[in-house]
């Protein structure tokens, strides 16, 4: 039973790595000022880790290229906008609806739910949205799936951006390009309400906890019956169906989970950023997250974490602090920040052409992308077509 032992070893290795990584991450904010910008960037980076791991389930595990992932960020953030602000200010005769929020917020109009309830709502909203988008899409060829998800992402982005014109009765879908603001801060049971004015570390630890949970879910899914079914579909859809794997249901689950994780991260960012701006949900953001997945290594969980951290560091530190200074010093007449998406695009191209398996490749992908896997299948067709 060497295989089982091997599996056991791998599991302990993963646990050890996880403990080490989380331990370092837990100490990180203590090295900075409680309201340091660096910690603020790190908080966003952690939310991106959650999103990248969610997208990784769809693209990396199930092999479905989703170019409209921003839609789930949008839904998650909008859930906060709807249920944790004065957006629906006239509900309950302008007295508002309140559930598990602080005393002060309880006095405000609009719907105000505790953040944990909002996370649950976001999971439900995005999970359903993911499946609704997925259902008509999944019969299509891979590249068509990419374009249709992109189209959905753009449609939802448009709705968010022009949401002030979309009204049911007197309630608008969003505030359009005027942000829904302020949104309620996070409040957890047994904790004080989080106050960003003095200390953002609590947000950091919530984000870290979300990451830990997401990592756990990712690992569990990867090593499960469902995870195997995803790999099977990714590698040979016809064979997978012939082995009894229901294609649509299995793909939908991948979509739903990816969407839900995107929604959770969106709900977190919506609360942390204190506002939900309808204009921010653009295609570029989908690519930003995709770049993390590709850079780290499609399907590789630790790789994607690294990818998300690296891309965040590039976005929040390398480009604004290093490259922009270089550009100014060289008097180039522009800043690299202006072309940050070009930088991510460049990363995508370079990685796909030079090292398609990513920084920390997953064992399977390495085989697939090296062209060894799959070639036999096509070739044997020729022997006796």
């Amino acid at each position, binding site marked *: 039973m060497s295989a089982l032992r091997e599996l056991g070893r791998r599991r302990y290795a993963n646990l050890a790595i996880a403990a080490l990584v989380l331990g370092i991450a837990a100490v990180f904010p203590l090295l900075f000022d409680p309201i340091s910008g660096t910690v603020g960037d790190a908080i966003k980076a952690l939310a991106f880790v959650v999103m990248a791991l969610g997208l990784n389930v769809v693209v990396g595990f199930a092999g479905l290229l989703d170019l409209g992932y921003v839609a789930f960020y949008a839904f998650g953030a909008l859930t906060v906008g709807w249920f944790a602000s004065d957006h629906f200010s006239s509900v309950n005769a302008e007295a508002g609806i309140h559930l598990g929020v602080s005393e002060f917020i309880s006095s405000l109009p609009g719907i105000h739910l505790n953040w944990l309830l909002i996370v649950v709502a976001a999971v439900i909203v995005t999970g359903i949205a993911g499946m609704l988008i997925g259902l008509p899409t999944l019969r299509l060829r891979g590249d068509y799936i990419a374009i249709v998800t992109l189209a959905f992402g753009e449609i939802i982005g448009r709705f968010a951006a022009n949401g002030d014109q979309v009204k049911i009765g007197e309630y608008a879908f969003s505030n359009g390009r005027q942000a829904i603001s302020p949104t309620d801060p996070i409040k957890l049971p047994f904790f004080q309400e989080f106050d960003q004015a003095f200390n953002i570390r609590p947000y950091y630890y919530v984000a870290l906890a979300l990451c830990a949970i997401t990592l756990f879910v990712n690992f569990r899914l990867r090593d499960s019956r469902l995870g195997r079914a995803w790999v099977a579909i990714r590698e040979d859809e016809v064979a997978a169906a012939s082995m009894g794997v229901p294609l649509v249901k299995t793909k939908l689950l991948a979509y739903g989970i990816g969407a839900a994780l995107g929604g959770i991260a969106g709900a977190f960012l919506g609360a942390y950023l204190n506002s939900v701006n309808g204009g921010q949900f653009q295609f570029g953001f989908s690519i930003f997250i995709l770049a993390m997945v590709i850079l780290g290594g499609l399907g590789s969980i630790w790789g994607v974490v690294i990818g998300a951290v690296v891309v965040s560091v590039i976005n929040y530190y390398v480009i604004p602090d290093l490259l922009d200074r270089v550009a100014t010093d060289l008097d180039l007449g522009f800043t690299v920040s202006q072309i940050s998406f070009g930088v991510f695009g460049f990363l995508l191209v370079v990685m796909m052409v030079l090292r398609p398996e990513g920084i920390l490749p997953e064992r399977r992908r390495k085989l697939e992308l090296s062209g060894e896997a799959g070639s*036999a299948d096509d070739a044997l067709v*020729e022997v006796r077509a």
Partner: protein
Amino acid sequence: MALLEVSDIHTFYGNIEALKGISLEVEEGECVTLIGSNGAGKSTTLRSISGLSPPRAGSIRFDGDEIGATPPQEIVGKGISQSPEGRHVFQRMTVRENLELGAYLRKDSRLNGDMERVFELFPRLKERERQKAGTMSGGEQQMLAIGRALMAEPKLLLLDEPSMGIAPILVERIYETIAEINRRGTTILLVEQSATFALDVSSRGYVLETGTVRLTDRSDALLENPEVQRAYLGA
């Protein structure tokens, strides 16, 4: 020296060895047949010669040149053209366009004459000159595939299963024409599953089995050889 000398080639699909050391020769002006059951490596041998599936080891010499690693589009220029298995005519192009593409690499001006020659061999194609290839029957498409290969003015013509999926009456017609092409001086290497016709028109044959040459002999001898029948229908 033979026109085509294949010596000990090993060809792989992925890590599956489809040819395990095939050697054969075709003399100028000959018509040679490769027979064998499904999966014996007949088509792969042709694909190796035409460059579509280059061998990983061994050598292929044509007209004195080594062509084992030459890409297919250059091999055509050297004088080998192939009518592939399953015909692979350009479905949405007319018969005439298909034939013109057969002569893609030729710069000379004798195309029209050659096309007339093909029409003479296959009068059916002349009738359908402006018709889309995909709308024709399997047998007509097979004629077109052979005609198209002839348009390259090959020294060596490779024919892969010209009888596959074709009604018996047409098979006879096609084989008469193959014999005629050979009589007019084109060297032919033929792969066929239905051995009788192929051995009738060829002078020599090789029997392939799981990627190796099982036996080789004169065609008439092979036709009488009980082992050939056994290879197909079991003992």
